[in-house]
């Protein structure tokens, strides 16, 4: 049972059982040996894909309300660094511990007790028993600090007794689930399924994004297995995601405007770009890639991918994502789910599929959609290509250039393509390489194409005409 179960700790086990927080003890045992085992990593939390990929794990998010982590930190320090101190404390305590103090080390019994208090405190915190909790936590902390082991245990016991009735079940189930990897920071691992997230979003919207407070959200959602802390951190991520979406949208909108401006204004001022920029879609009349589009840190991992709106299940699996058309920003994306990073940075500007890149791992839970849909009212796509599902997100920046050819071409969509028109279109591309790509599909990786060609025995060099 106890993760820590050296012979000498049997007494402790009894004690733990007695206090009714056996579960926690187990967790604690694990904790003490596993201080760096976070309940969830960014990778686990699928929504990491969508937005800011926090360098540190989710645990680092500052709590919105109570700060149980502070409580824990305190205990952890004591626990981690306090073996020595503990030993001292241990000695006198013979109160309930037939176990011998020297076992402190392997047993970490003392730690366990303190952490018991911490756990209990935490549990209560999660349940929102703010104040009384604090008191107990403080008491426990104080007790621990003072080396009064007995006091700590008592405080813990009180706590647990008082919380036993209603919360013990919850606490236990919570801890059960987070048992194995729980940490001082008791963050039960929450699986933010699309459904769960949807409810979350509903609750938030109901309250108003600014007024959405974790405890209220929790009430509205009415899901027992969620702790306020879970909600708090999820909310934080959600808010940050929204901000980015908004920022992106704003940028996208401004880009679109600029583009139109330039396109109509300087139609022919085709910027002939040197080959090196071949990948960067040199667009007509576009000024050199705008200053690193602000969303540098793009977390926009969402960009690109069909702007996955945070919170909705992805329509498909893994890579398949709606092609991005955007030509907008998005400088570079850290870890695009799809593919290798854009060929060039500035280029990335155009073909950015931020979202697209990244660890192929599409968050199963994820999210997608809705929000952005609202946000990015895709600008009318010229000659919408039937297949282009394009949805919502993409701040579609389809070829809005007043390009007559394109218009004509687009009109062909519904008729049987005639050879002449195809020929004309092709000729167009050949003679005017600077034209923007009509669809803006994510370009294939040069290396893989070359590799493939080699396998087929073809030399790439443009075949002599």
């Amino acid at each position: 049972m106890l993760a820590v179960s050296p012979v000498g700790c049997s007494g402790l086990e009894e004690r733990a059982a007695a206090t009714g927080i056996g579960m926690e003890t187990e967790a604690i045992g694990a904790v003490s040996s596993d201080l760096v085992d976070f309940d969830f990593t960014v990778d686990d939390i699928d929504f990491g894909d969508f937005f800011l990929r926090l360098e540190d794990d989710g645990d680092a998010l500052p709590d919105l309300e109570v700060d149980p982590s502070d409580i824990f930190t305190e205990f952890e320090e004591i626990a981690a660094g306090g073996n020595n101190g503990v030993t001292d404390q241990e000695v006198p305590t013979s109160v309930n511990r037939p176990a011998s103090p020297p076992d402190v080390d392997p047993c970490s019994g003392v730690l366990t007790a303190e952490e018991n208090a911490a756990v209990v405190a935490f549990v209560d915190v999660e349940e929102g028993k703010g104040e009384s909790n604090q008191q107990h936590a403080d008491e426990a902390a104080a007790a621990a600090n003072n080396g009064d082991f007995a006091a700590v245990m008592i405080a813990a016991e009180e706590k647990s007794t008082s919380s036993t009735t209603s919360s013990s079940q919850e606490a236990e189930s919570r801890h059960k689930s987070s048992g194995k990897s729980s940490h001082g920071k008791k963050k039960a691992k929450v699986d933010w399924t699309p459904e769960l997230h949807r409810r979350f979003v509903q609750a938030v919207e109901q309250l108003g994004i600014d007024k959405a407070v974790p405890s209220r959200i929790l009430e509205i959602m009415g899901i027992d297995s969620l702790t306020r802390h879970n909600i708090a951190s999820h909310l934080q991520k959600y808010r940050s995601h929204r901000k980015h979406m908004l920022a992106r949208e704003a940028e996208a909108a401004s880009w679109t405007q600029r583009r139109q401006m330039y396109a109509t204004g300087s139609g022919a001022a085709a910027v002939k770009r040197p080959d090196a920029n071949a990948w960067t879609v040199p667009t007509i009349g576009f000024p050199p890639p705008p200053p690193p589009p602000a969303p540098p840190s793009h977390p926009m991992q969402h960009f690109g991918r069909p702007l996955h709106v945070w919170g909705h299940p992805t329509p498909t699996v893994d890579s398949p994502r709606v092609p991005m058309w955007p030509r907008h920003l998005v400088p570079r994306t850290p870890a695009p789910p799809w593919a290798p990073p854009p060929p060039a940075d500035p280029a990335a500007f155009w073909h950015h599929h931020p979202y697209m890149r990244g660890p192929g791992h599409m968050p199963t839970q994820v999210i997608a959609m809705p929000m952005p849909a609202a946000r990015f009212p895709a600008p009318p796509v010229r000659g919408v290509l039937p297949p282009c599902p394009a949805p919502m997100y993409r701040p579609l920046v389809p070829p809005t250039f007043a390009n007559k050819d394109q218009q004509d071409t687009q009109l062909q969509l519904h008729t049987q393509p005639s050879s002449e028109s195809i020929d004309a279109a092709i000729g167009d591309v050949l003679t005017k390489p600077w034209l923007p790509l009509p669809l803006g599909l994510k370009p294939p990786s040069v290396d893989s194409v070359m590799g493939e060609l080699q396998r087929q025995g073809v030399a790439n060099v443009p075949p002599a005409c």
Partner: protein
Amino acid sequence: MGDASSASYIRMVHHLIEKCICFNLNKEECMDALEKHANINPVITSTVWKELEKENKEFFETYNKDRVDRNIEEETMQRIQKMLSDAAASKTDDDEEEG
């Protein structure tokens, strides 16, 4: 060597393929068209197409589905037209006979 030129060549082919997609061509048709009008080795076209498909799976899935739908639609339309013309033809015959 010639990396830049390879890259730009590939980009060109990519662009051409996109144009073909605008015409609703499938891979084979595209290969033919590019070879005929732009002298591009169909193998290259095919490779770039496949890579594009890999990178833009969702798009191509939809695209292909739409093509299929459109083909079905076309076929149906043609059948209807045929039926209509057959009916018109036989009606005329009847008329003639009767008349």
